[in-house]
C-alpha cells in the first residue's frame, strides 16, 4: 500500500493551493481596498478593522474545500500514470481533506474568537454560534463543540463536493456540461413544485417539517440541541463516504 506516499503528494499540492488562497484572499480583502483608497484619495475612509470584521474567512475556506474536492480528475490522471490504485487514492484523499479541514477550521475559529469577537462583540459569528450557542453553559465546552460542529459542516461540504466531482468524472466532458446546465434547472423546477405542493396541502408536508425541526434540534423550549444535527451530518457523511468509494472504484481514464 502506498497510502503514505500518496497522502504526502496530495497534501503538498493542496496545502500550497490553500496557502495561495489565503494570500489571494488577503490581497483581495485588504490590499485591493487600500490600493483603491490610495488611488481615489480617500485613504482616511480605509478601515483595516472594518475590513477585518467583514472578512468571511470561514465561508472562503468552505468554498475552497468544495471546489478542490470536485476537481479530483487531475490527481487521478497523475496517480493512475504512476501505478496508484483507486482505493489508495481514495484513502489518501480523505486523509488529506481531514487534515486540511483541521487546519482551516482552526484558522477559522482563531479568527472568529480572536479577531471578530473582540472587534464586534457579536456572538453569532457562525452557524453553530447563531443556533446552538446557548445550549452549553461552560464556554470551554461551547468552543470545543463549535470546533467539532464547524468541522463536521466542512466534512459534509467536502464529501458532497467529492460525491458530485466523482460522479461527474464518470461522464464525458459533453455530458458533464449537460449535467451542469440541467441540474440547476431541474432543481429550480423541483423547488417550485415542492413549494407549490407545500402551500396547497401543508398538512401532507407536516412530517417533513417535523423532521426538519427534529434535525435542527427544536424540542419545545427556546434552546436548540446541536446533537441531532451533528448526528445527521455524521450519518450523511458516512453514506457519502460509501458512495464516493464506489464512484472512485469506477474512475477510468477518459478517451483523449
Amino acid at each position, binding site marked *: *500500500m*502506498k497510502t503514505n506516499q500518496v497522502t504526502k*503528494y496530495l497534501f503538498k499540492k493542496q496545502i500550497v493551493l490553500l496557502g495561495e488562497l489565503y494570500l489571494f484572499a488577503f490581497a483581495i480583502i485588504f490590499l485591493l481596498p487600500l490600493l483603491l483608497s490610495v488611488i481615489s484619495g480617500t485613504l482616511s475612509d480605509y478601515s483595516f478593522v472594518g475590513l477585518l470584521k467583514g472578512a468571511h474567512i470561514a465561508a472562503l475556506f468552505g468554498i475552497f474545500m468544495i471546489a478542490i474536492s470536485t476537481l479530483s480528475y*487531475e490527481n487521478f490522471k*497523475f496517480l493512475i500514470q*504512476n*501505478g496508484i490504485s483507486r482505493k489508495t487514492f481514495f484513502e489518501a484523499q480523505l486523509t488529506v481533506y481531514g487534515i486540511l479541514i483541521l487546519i482551516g477550521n482552526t484558522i477559522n475559529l482563531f479568527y472568529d474568537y480572536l479577531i471578530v469577537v473582540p472587534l464586534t462583540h457579536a456572538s453569532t459569528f457562525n452557524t453553530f454560534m447563531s443556533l446552538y450557542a446557548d445550549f452549553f453553559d461552560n464556554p470551554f465546552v461551547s468552543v470545543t463543540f463549535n470546533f467539532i460542529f464547524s468541522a463536521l459542516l466542512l466534512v459534509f461540504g467536502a464529501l458532497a463536493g467529492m460525491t458530485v466531482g466523482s460522479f461527474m468524472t464518470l461522464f464525458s466532458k459533453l455530458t458533464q456540461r449537460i449535467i451542469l446546465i440541467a441540474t440547476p434547472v431541474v432543481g429550480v423546477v423541483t423547488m417550485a413544485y415542492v413549494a407549490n405542493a407545500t402551500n396547497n396541502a401543508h398538512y401532507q408536508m407536516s412530517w417533513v417539517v417535523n423532521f426538519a425541526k427534529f434535525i435542527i434540534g427544536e424540542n419545545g423550549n427556546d434552546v436548540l440541541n446541536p446533537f441531532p444535527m451533528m448526528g445527521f451530518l455524521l450519518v450523511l457523511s458516512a453514506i457519502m463516504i460509501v458512495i464516493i468509494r464506489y464512484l472512485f472504484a469506477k474512475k*477510468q*481514464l477518459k*478517451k483523449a
Partner: protein
Amino acid sequence: MSVLEVNHVSKSFGSNTILQDINLAFEENKIYGLLGRNGAGKSTLLNIMTNRIFPDAGDVKLDSENINDNDTKLGLMYLMSEVNLYSNGTTLKQIISDTELMYGDFDHSFAARLIDEFGIDINQKFGKLSTGYNSIFKLILALCVPVKFVLLDEPVLGLDANHRELFYSELIQSYSDNPRTFIISTHLIEEVANIISDVIVLDQGRIMLDQPVEDVLAKTHSVVGPAKDVERYTKGLNVIGHDTMGTIKANYVYGDLDDRPLPDTVQLSNFDLQKLFIFLTNKYEGSMHSEN
C-alpha cells in the same frame, strides 16, 4: 519469474468492438513488439493492462494476482503513452520527484545522462514541451522508474531520426544494465524488428500472431519460380500473400513446409517481419471487404 497475463479480455466502446477475447502472457526480461495498424486496439489493450480503463470481460494478472486496484502490482508497471497525464503547469523536475515518490525509487544517474544526451531542460513546464520532447521526457521517466514491465505505446512519435536512433540505443543499454520486460507498441516495424524478442500482431481487436521472432521468421517462406511450379509446390500450404512478375510468381507461405520435394526451378528463402505483418493484416481486411 514474473508473468503478466491477459485473460479473455474484451472491450467495446459503444457498438464499436475494440478487443475480442484477448489472451496473452508476457514473460520476464523479454522485449515484446505489439504490432498493429492504427485502430487495431493496441492502446486500449495497454490501457486495460495498466488499470487505466476496465475491460468489459476478462482480467489482467501479474504473478497470478489481479492487478485491478492493486498498488503492489500496478507499481511494477509503467505505461508511457501519447496521452499526457501530467499537469501542464508542473516543471519536469517536479514531475521527476513526484514520480520517484510514487514508485519509491528513480534512476537519477541514468536520467541525468539521458537529459544531457537529448538536451532537455528540466526546469521548464511540462505543457511547454514540443511533441518530440514531450515523448522524450516520458521515455526518460519510463526508463528510470523501478518497474519490471515497461509498456511503451508508440514511443518514438514525433522524434526525429537522430533522437530515434539515440532512444533505441539507450533502450538497449537500459535493458542490458537492468533486464526487465519491455512491451513496445508500434506500427514502425522495421525499426524494432531486430530489437524485439517476441512479436504480437493485433488486428481488428484479435491476436493474429504471438510468438518469438526467431520462430516466426523460421516459418516464413517465400517460394519463387515459374507460376505453375510455385502453385504446385505451395498447394495446401498456408499462403498468405503473393507477388507476380510476368510468369514468375512469389508465393509467401507462413507455416512449416512439409517434406514435399522442391522442384529445381523453385527457390526458397525467408521473408521479414514487415512483409509478414502486411500480409497478415491485409488478408484480414481483404476478407472483411468481401463480406461487405
